[in-house]
């Protein structure tokens, strides 16, 4: 069956790289690190500017940046400027797509589109 084949491919593919994927997801599963990536989408930033934006102590920011570099989601050039990598960009796009296209979000969006009250002319049938 086609459906079973698609799932088989997904299972095999994810299982092969489960350790690496888990490490990346663990790195991304932190609000501050995710924020750093989002800020870097607008363009490269110096360490000082990242500290200002994230609003954490310098040691904490350094820790986060180290994690992100280890997982190849950002890189630092010789001038101390940080920028998002191709990997970082692809992961952000994937997260965004998965989140907003998830059945839960689609349902919420659909329900909010439908949200309105009954019209006065409809209501008159009950209130006279």
């Amino acid at each position, binding site marked *: 069956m086609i459906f079973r084949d698609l799932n088989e491919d997904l299972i095999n593919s994810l299982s092969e790289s489960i350790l690496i994927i888990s490490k990346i997801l663990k790195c991304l599963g932190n609000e501050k690190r995710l924020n750093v990536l989002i800020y870097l989408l607008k363009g490269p930033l110096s360490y000082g500017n990242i500290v200002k934006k994230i609003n954490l102590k310098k040691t904490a920011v350094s820790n986060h940046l180290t994690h992100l570099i280890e997982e190849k989601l950002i890189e630092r050039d010789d001038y101390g400027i940080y920028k998002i990598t191709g990997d970082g960009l692809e992961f952000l796009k994937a997260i965004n797509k998965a989140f907003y296209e998830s059945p839960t979000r689609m349902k919420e969006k659909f329900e909010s589109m*439908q*949200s309105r009250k009954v019209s006065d002319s*409809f209501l008159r049938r009950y209130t*006279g």
Partner: protein
Amino acid sequence: MEPIITDEKEYKLLGCVYYGDPFHSAKGWDPDNEIGNTWKRFYKLFNQYKDFLDKAKAGIEFGFEVHIEPGDYKKKKKFHIFVGIEVKNYDFFPLDMFYKVFPKTKYLFFTTKYLGKGCESIFSDWLPNSNYEQSYPYIMQSYSPDRWKGEDHPNSLMDWYIPIKRKKENKKNDI
């Protein structure tokens, strides 16, 4: 009775649907209008599939009647009537019955006499002065064994469920 605000609930109903002007053949509470005809269709199917529906049924209500206003009601004066029972999650239902999931929402619950008026003050007074407004364009009525004693009983009460949500601005007196 004072209206009650329920917790959020997602009603899953199974029953029959009518779309059009339900009063084209008979008016108001006449059992021969299309609302009455939809109930008759539903009862017939309920008896036909009774063994299955007794297992699939959720809740204690005898049934629900939902009036759903489509976006073009003002122009066409036609709307949907859904009549049915609440059901549990199942993978299959009879082909000639229709399954509908209503959005997860709070409801304003109150009771009125059958055939009598009683909901006007809810829409003209209670809701406008509360922290709530209607959330979706439908009105749900139900018949519970605790209060419904049949069409001919003078003390029969019917239940109303108006889908509501909190208004965006907060009023001083939170009801």
